[in-house]
C-alpha cells in the first residue's frame, strides 16, 4: 500500500499546484496550498509505516503550521478585502514592483 499512497500524494500535490497557478481567487489559492500540505502529510504517514513513528509527529507539526498559516493568511485576506473590495490576485499587484 505504500507505493499507492505515495502516488496519490504526488497526484494531490500536482493538482494543488495546478490550482495555485490557474486560479485568481485568493481564497481558492489558499485552499490549494492546504491541499498540497495534505498531500505531503499523506507521504509522511506512508513513510512512517516504513521508518517509524517520527513521520506522524511531523504530520502533527505540519497541521499546526497549516492552522497558523490559515489564521494569518485569512486575516490578511480580510484586511485586503477591506481596503480593495476584491480578492482577485491580478488586481493586488502592490508588491510586484
Amino acid at each position, binding site marked *: 500500500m505504500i507505493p499507492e499512497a505515495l502516488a496519490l500524494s504526488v*497526484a494531490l500535490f500536482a493538482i494543488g499546484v495546478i490550482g495555485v*497557478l490557474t*486560479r485568481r481567487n485568493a*481564497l481558492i489559492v489558499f485552499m490549494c496550498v492546504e491541499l498540497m500540505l495534505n498531500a505531503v502529510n499523506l507521504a509522511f504517514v506512508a513513510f512512517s*509505516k516504513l521508518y517509524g513513528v*517520527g513521520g506522524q509527529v511531523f504530520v502533527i507539526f505540519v497541521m499546526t*503550521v497549516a492552522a497558523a498559516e*490559515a489564521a494569518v493568511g485569512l*486575516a490578511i485576506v*480580510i484586511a485586503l478585502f477591506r481596503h480593495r473590495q476584491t480578492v482577485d490576485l491580478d488586481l493586488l499587484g502592490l508588491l510586484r514592483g
Partner: protein
Amino acid sequence: MLPDYPLFYSFHFYLFGLVALASAIAFVTRKSPVAAALWLVNVMFSLAALYVMMDAHFVGAIQVLVYAGAIMVVFLFVVMLLNLGHADSMRDQRDPRVRATAAAVAVALTIELAVLARPDWLPVVPTPLAPPPASTGAIAPVADALFNEYLLAFELTSVLILVAIIGAVVLGRRTST
C-alpha cells in the same frame, strides 16, 4: 515491501484513494468557493480514512478535527463573511494558455517526484523494523516521540501559535489609519 493485504483492506484503500483523487479534481475545477471548500473537506475525510488504514489513528482523528473541522470552517466563514460565494462575480479561471502551462508544470512535477520516490532510491532501514504492534498508530507511541525526541520543536510550536494569534488579531483589527 509489506506482505499481502486482505481484499477488504485493499478494496477500501483504493476506494478512499480514488474518492480523494476525484474530490481533489472536483475541488480544483469548481467555480464557486463554497463548493470548492466542501470538495476539499471531502478530500480531507478520505485522507483521514487512509491515515487510519495506515495505522495512524491519532493523525486520522486530528485530520478530521483540525483540518476538516477547524481550518475549513474558518475558510468557509471567510468566504461567507466577504460574500464571495457567487461564482460569476469574478473572473476566476485564468486563460487557456496559463492553464496549459500549469498542466505542463504539474506533469513535470509528477514525473520528477515519481522518479525521486522510486523504491530503490529510498534509504534502506538498517535493521528492519519489527512488525508494528497493533497499537502503533494509537496515541501512546506518537506521544512518546512527541514529548521526548521532539520536545523542543513541540515547545517552539506554542510560540508559533502565539505569534499567529497576535498576527491574526493585529491584521484583522479595524485600524483607523
